């Protein structure tokens, strides 16, 4: 059968010059443009695919889509459709348009085109069949381009969202990992827990410096009980942090230097001579109180079953 042979030839036609029938179809769709486009818009409105679009947007979008589709049929190439689909997907996803709206709209257009072909050729079946052989692959190709563009856009948005969440979580973890606590007026405690690498030491120092300013701190206790190993590099970070705090007028007391760490530091020859160190956190707080001019006194509350509570006096 002749039609069949034609169909195979037309299914992969891109670069081939438009056949006489293709030219006829293009002319047909161009000639009936206003009528068919109007029909398409009405059907889409009925299915409420146009929710969220202004009449003006509907007008421009529908004209562009109509012309782009006819252009694809005419030229047998889809670059214009590809780029328009990508931009439509970007805008659509941003404005919260559903996939159903977009795909549904294009399926509607496909039907409108198809029906108008039936109308034109319903008296000559062979020609109708040949026309559909030309028209259908083009319509399907456009649909798949648009569907793919939408899926890609969705994935992109999801991926960006996920990366954003991960970034926020990393920020949060970092904040959590270096809490700066105000114990009393002018006194901050910074318990360092975990390994201290250059990056973390830097963040920690920046955060501590800002806290000193914000809280008007005069003494800072840096407790390193929770730092597993202190090599010369880590010690160097600590010394820098102490120096930076001092530039802002705050005194730093380092507490919790474990016996092995003290030994290591002495062996590798790190000079912590300029750093005020106290054995443990409790001792550190006592020293801080002394520096700040506080004195802890024990008040006797007669008849109270609970042990006397220490009170602070300045």
């Amino acid at each position, binding site marked *: 059968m002749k039609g069949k042979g034609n169909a195979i030839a037309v299914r992969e036609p891109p670069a081939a010059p438009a056949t006489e029938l293709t030219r006829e179809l293009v002319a047909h769709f161009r000639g009936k443009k206003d009528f068919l486009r109007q029909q398409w818009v009405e059907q889409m409105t009925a299915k409420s695919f146009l929710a969220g679009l202004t009449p003006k947007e509907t007008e421009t979008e529908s004209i562009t889509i109509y012309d782009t589709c006819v252009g694809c049929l005419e030229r047998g190439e889809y670059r214009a459709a590809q780029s328009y689909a990508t931009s439509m997907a970007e805008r659509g996803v941003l404005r919260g348009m559903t996939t159903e709206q977009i795909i549904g709209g294009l399926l509607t257009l496909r039907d409108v085109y198809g029906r108008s072909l039936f109308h034109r050729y319903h008296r000559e079946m062979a020609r109708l069949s040949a026309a559909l052989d030309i028209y259908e692959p083009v319509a399907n190709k456009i649909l798949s381009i648009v569907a793919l563009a939408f899926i890609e856009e969705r994935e992109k948005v999801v991926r960006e969202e996920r*990366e954003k969440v*991960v970034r926020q979580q990393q920020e949060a973890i970092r904040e959590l990992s270096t809490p700066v606590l105000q114990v009393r007026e002018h006194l901050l405690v910074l318990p360092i827990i975990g390994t201290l690498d250059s990056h973390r030491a830097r963040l920690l120092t920046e955060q501590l410096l800002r806290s000193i300013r914000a809280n008007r701190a005069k003494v800072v206790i840096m407790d390193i009980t929770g730092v597993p190993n202190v090599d010369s590099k880590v010690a160097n970070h600590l010394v820098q942090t102490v120096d930076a705090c001092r530039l802002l007028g705050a005194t730093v007391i380092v507490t919790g230097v474990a016996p092995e760490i003290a030994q290591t530091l002495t062996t590798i020859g790190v000079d912590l001579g300029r750093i005020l160190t106290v054995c443990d956190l409790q001792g550190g707080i006592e020293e801080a109180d002394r520096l700040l001019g506080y004195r802890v006194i024990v008040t006797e509350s007669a008849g109270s079953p609970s042990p006397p509570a220490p009170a602070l006096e300045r």
Partner: protein
Amino acid sequence: MAADVRVPIESDADIVTARQQGRALAATVGFGNSELTLIATAISEVARNIVEHAGRGEVILSPTEANNSQGIVVVARDQGPGIPNIEQALRDGYSTRGSLGLGLPGARRLMDEFEIASKVGKGTTVTMKKWIHRNLTEFPLRPRR
């Protein structure tokens, strides 16, 4: 992207201009506050090196980009006497003028990349770069294999 900025260095007042311009350019590139201070301080050191050793020269500031990250390039150039021993000049505490001797080695610590090219009698060019360290470069998101 912002354009290159060229600051002629002829006196100590130009050192201030160079670091202010550098800070401004780095801010448009997108550096955070504490990094802006590091960059401005490093520029101050290399510009002072020109004033002290060559008398005059120039500092050229330009935005740069590589591997998806943004950065700034600072080039400090003079036609002064040159540095006979670069290794020595980059050592902490080395100074020919009774200063702290922290200028060049200090600037190197503040930046991510640092290079010196010098010829005795011809002059010295210091090129240094700093990149914006995004959180993701510290903790890269790698696709699972």
